[in-house]
């Protein structure tokens, strides 16, 4: 005979449809989103990983100042590599962006055609798909650089530009103001040699077996190439952000999504647990009778677990269905909105199924099993007597008679429901954390943009492209000659220009990835950097420095701290002592006198590598200008985050509100249900609905408001910590989590309005509690 108790299940589901439906909707939304994300992420990762072989992505590139001869190429290729020409020109377009144009490649770094056609004629061009999206360029549109015009024939993804970094040492790529494109060989040849940048990509004949071997091979190669040609830049693939940033970023997003899923599942499992616990309290007499009649604890645990598990399983299955269909597209587009990835193929992902279906099911099972088993360990007699306390209450909390009666009544309700309110607090804490992230990030980015524009060292900062020959260790004469040639070439008549020297080192932190710190050598009496170095020179053995406020904030450094930095590609380390903090948020930087920098790195007193300037410098050959740091360049990070995360933020906001509504609805519903008998009795006594609501709803309202206020404060500090961890672990540079106090008011109002909806529903519920409820249970 089948257990007749099972017949209650569909009726139970029907009578509690609101409760189960909201949890189901939340589960479907959550699992749908996470599963869609994991499927898209998994498929995207496979697509990305396979692209290395499929499109023959280079093992590295080097830049030269002029075209390489065939003999030089042959000489380099004797080092176990095949070298391919991969030159480009950069064309500033009329829309304010810059397009890096390559000749269409068919050997290395092959191009994936996403839409349309490859260019066929000299005036045709195929441009990066994401750049096109961000600049609203469509196939058939004309791009204009002033001197040239191209018709867009297709949208492409360049396999070596999945993240559109224009320069490898940029903090963040900028797919709005920078794009890549391909033209026909004939069109590329039509550019003058002055316009061309001579880049060469190499592919190893035998791939290095691991990262260490790759690093050693690259170090040997740079030496070998340096003997043949004068290098302008040398970037092995593993250091190329345009190729590797995407892969690294995918991993961190994935961990965040899985963490989000598990946190919400655990909260929902506890909500289910509390709900069932409440049902058990309500049905205590019946349970007592069943236990007395011989029903085992196991049978009852199983019975009460069926519905939560069915709802979870259904939510997981339907969520996965939605994940594979609708949400996969949404998440795929999120990736395509952030990265310029090649064509995507959905791959069935068993791990995603395990994470989004099997794991939530077991988390739910274990938590509910623990709560139920513990609850049902009580004896049949305790159930019959409705004596469900595990421990006897030793003392009643005394409330003074001076407290008005209604307040005392409400306090008793709060004491009685403290486990529900604790869960409500945890739920609100989590929902507010999501809300703070969703609503706060755009404000943080705006703040960053505003602050950075007011905080520039100078309106224009030119980083010169210093030939690597200047730093030649092998020939001092060669180095000196190069230096003289370079100095002449980069002289300027701009009166506001002030030379500075710069060097970059990397951090040595063990907890996060190494990142670049820019060391500025500042002229005496600088008009742009107002630091009085006279106090520190000498007494610290030449190691006293000022650091930028961004550096100090990110690594929590204070004056007096010592810092160890290392050479990027070598093992040499340098120690510095922080003498002061200089208010500059644009970069993780260190400031010291120019002479000090020259001395530390043996570059001589005349060496300089850039200019600060009030106005634009127009009299230096652009080939010597590595980059211009203006407000536009410094706000790249925030702009790109805005582009790639903007839509996600709305999803996060919506999801936070959904969690908020679900938790408040379920838990305040429980308070009402738990007190149905008392509510009924107060009605019999003559209390009006309004008065009863003031007792029961106001008690919950007080707890909601208190939880809101307390959790907003906790969440703010929690978010400061989380944001710092994200910055430390997965982003170079520093953005401070700085929001206006108005955000907290907005969050509070959002929460209260959400609660108001639930409160109205609860008020209606109170109106519907029948007066015979009290009598029925007293039978």
């Amino acid at each position, binding site marked *: 005979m089948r257990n007749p*108790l099972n017949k209650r299940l569909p009726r139970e589901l029907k009578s509690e449809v609101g409760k189960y439906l909201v949890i189901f909707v939340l589960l479907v939304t959550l699992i749908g989103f996470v599963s869609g994300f994991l499927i898209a992420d998994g498929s995207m990762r496979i697509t990305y990983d396979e692209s290395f072989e499929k499109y023959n992505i280079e093992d590295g590139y080097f830049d030269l100042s002029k075209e390489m001869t065939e003999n030089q190429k042959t000489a380099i290729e004797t080092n176990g590599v095949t070298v391919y020409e991969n030159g480009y020109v950069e064309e500033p377009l009329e829309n304010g962006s810059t397009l890096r144009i390559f000749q269409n490649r068919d050997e290395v770094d092959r191009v994936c055609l996403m839409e349309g056609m490859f260019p066929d004629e000299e005036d045709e061009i195929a441009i990066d798909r994401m750049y096109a999206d961000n600049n609203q360029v469509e196939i058939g549109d004309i791009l204009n650089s002033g001197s040239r015009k191209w018709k867009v024939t297709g949208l492409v993804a360049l396999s070596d530009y999945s993240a559109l970094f224009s320069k490898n040492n940029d903090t963040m790529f900028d797919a709005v103001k920078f794009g890549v494109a391909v033209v026909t060989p004939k069109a590329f040849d039509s550019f003058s040699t002055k316009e061309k940048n001579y880049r060469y990509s190499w592919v190893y004949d035998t791939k290095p077996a691991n990262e260490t071997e790759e690093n050693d091979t690259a170090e040997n190669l740079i030496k070998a190439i340096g003997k043949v040609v004068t290098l302008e830049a040398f970037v092995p693939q593993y250091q190329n952000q345009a190729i590797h940033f995407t892969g690294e970023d995918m991993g961190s997003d994935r961990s965040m999504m899985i963490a989000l899923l598990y946190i919400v599942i655990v909260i929902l499992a506890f909500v289910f647990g509390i709900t069932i616990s409440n049902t058990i309290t309500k049905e205590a007499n019946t349970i007592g*009778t069943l236990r007395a*009649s011989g029903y085992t604890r196991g049978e009852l645990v199983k019975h009460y677990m069926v519905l939560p598990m069915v709802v979870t399983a259904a939510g997981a299955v339907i969520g996965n269905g939605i994940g594979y269909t609708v949400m996969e597209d949404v998440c795929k587009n999120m990736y395509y909105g952030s990265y310029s990835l090649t064509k995507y193929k959905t791959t069935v992902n068993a791990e995603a199924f395990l994470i989004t279906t099997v794991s939530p099911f077991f988390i739910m099972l274990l938590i509910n099993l623990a709560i139920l088993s513990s609850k049902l360990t009580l004896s049949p007699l305790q159930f*019959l007597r409705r004596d469900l306390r595990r421990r006897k209450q030793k003392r009643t909390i005394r409330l003074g008679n001076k407290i008005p009666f209604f307040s005392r009544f409400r306090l008793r309700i709060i004491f009685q429901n403290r486990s529900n309110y604790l869960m409500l607090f945890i739920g609100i804490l989590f929902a507010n954390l999501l809300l703070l992230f969703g609503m706060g990030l755009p404000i943080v980015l705006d703040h960053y943009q505003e602050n950075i524009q007011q905080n520039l060292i100078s309106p224009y900062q030119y980083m010169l492209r210093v030939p690597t020959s200047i730093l030649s260790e092998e020939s001092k004469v060669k180095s000196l000659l190069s230096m003289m040639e370079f100095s002449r070439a980069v002289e300027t008549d701009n009166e506001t220009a002030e030379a500075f020297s710069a060097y970059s080192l990397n951090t040595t932190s063990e907890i996060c990835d190494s990142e670049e710190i820019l060391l500025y050598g500042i002229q005496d009496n600088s008009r742009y950097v107002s630091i009085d170095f006279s106090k520190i020179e000498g007494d610290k053995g030449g190691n006293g420095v000022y650091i930028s406020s961004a550096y100090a904030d990110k690594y929590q450094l204070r004056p007096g701290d010592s810092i160890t930095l290392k050479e990027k590609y070598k093992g040499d380390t340098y120690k510095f002592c922080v003498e002061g903090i200089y208010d500059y948020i644009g970069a993780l930087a260190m400031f010291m006198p120019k002479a000090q920098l020259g001395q530390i790195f043996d570059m001589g007193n005349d060496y300089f590598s850039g200019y600060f300037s009030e106005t634009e410098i127009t009299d230096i050959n652009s080939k010597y200008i590595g980059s211009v740091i203006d407000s536009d360049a410094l706000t790249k990070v925030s702009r790109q985050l805005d582009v790639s995360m903007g839509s996600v933020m709305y999803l996060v906001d919506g999801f936070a509100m959904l969690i908020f509504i679900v938790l408040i609805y379920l838990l305040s519903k429980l308070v009402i249900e738990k007190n149905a008998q008392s509510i009924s009795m107060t009605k019999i006594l003559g209390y009006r609905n309004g008065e009863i609501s003031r007792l029961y709803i106001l008690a919950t309202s007080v707890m909601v408001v208190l939880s809101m206020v307390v959790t907003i404060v906790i969440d703010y500090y929690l978010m400061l910590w989380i944001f710092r961890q994200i910055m430390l672990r997965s982003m170079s540079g520093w953005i401070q989590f700085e929001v206006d106090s108005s955000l907290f008011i907005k969050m509070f109002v959002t929460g209260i309005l959400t609660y108001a909806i639930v409160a109205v529903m609860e008020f209606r519920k109170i109106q519907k509690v029948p007066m015979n409820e009290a009598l029925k249970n007293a039978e």
Partner: protein
Amino acid sequence: MTARRICEKWGEGMFLEIKGIRKSFGEGDSRVDVLKGIDLGIEKGEFCVLLGPSGSGKSTLLNIIGGIDHSDAGYISINHEKTGDMKEKKLTQYRRKHLGYIFQMYNLIPNLTVRENIEVGAYLSDEPLDIDEMLHTLAIYEHQYKLPNQLSGGQQQRTAIGRALIKNPDILLCDEPTGALDYRTSKEILKLIETVNQKYGNTIVMVTHNDAIKAMADYVVHLKDGMIRKSYRNENKIPAQELNW
């Protein structure tokens, strides 16, 4: 003294044997001795009524017999099996097979119909009685598809009796089964209990503070302050129909 009298006095060799049962609640100054050494013996098929005022310990004794409460001393033996020696799992199995419970509060499952509530009891037995026959016996056949809240108190109690009886338990334990019912309905329920006792031969132990009910019992036990004040076998029992109070 005849052998039967000796057995009766100590309860030895009886189907339901209650020996030296003591029970107290609380500790120290607040300790209350609820049962102060109860010895009883009830024969198979007998209808025993435990009478006494509130606080006399009758419900506690019933709960100890049913294995849902433990005694501090003494033992209960049902058909020569001591329940005190049983671990919780075995005790549950024992209740499942041999005991039926009826309470003053009907404790029906609100979202199961009358028939389904009775099926809840049937599920516990390998050889349950026929449900339709039981529904007829209980005179609730026509209400079998109603939910408990669509029934009168008497009908709900009939359903609770059906749930307890359907597994054909050896002992039916009734704790104030008519306590919440009016005179007429109470008599109907008592008549029903009498009928099932005769029809199915279950041993019935009923706790009540209604003195009139003793007239229909085979065996009457008066409890007061945790002790048996008086117990006797009723030689002149009358049908439930003729009870008056």
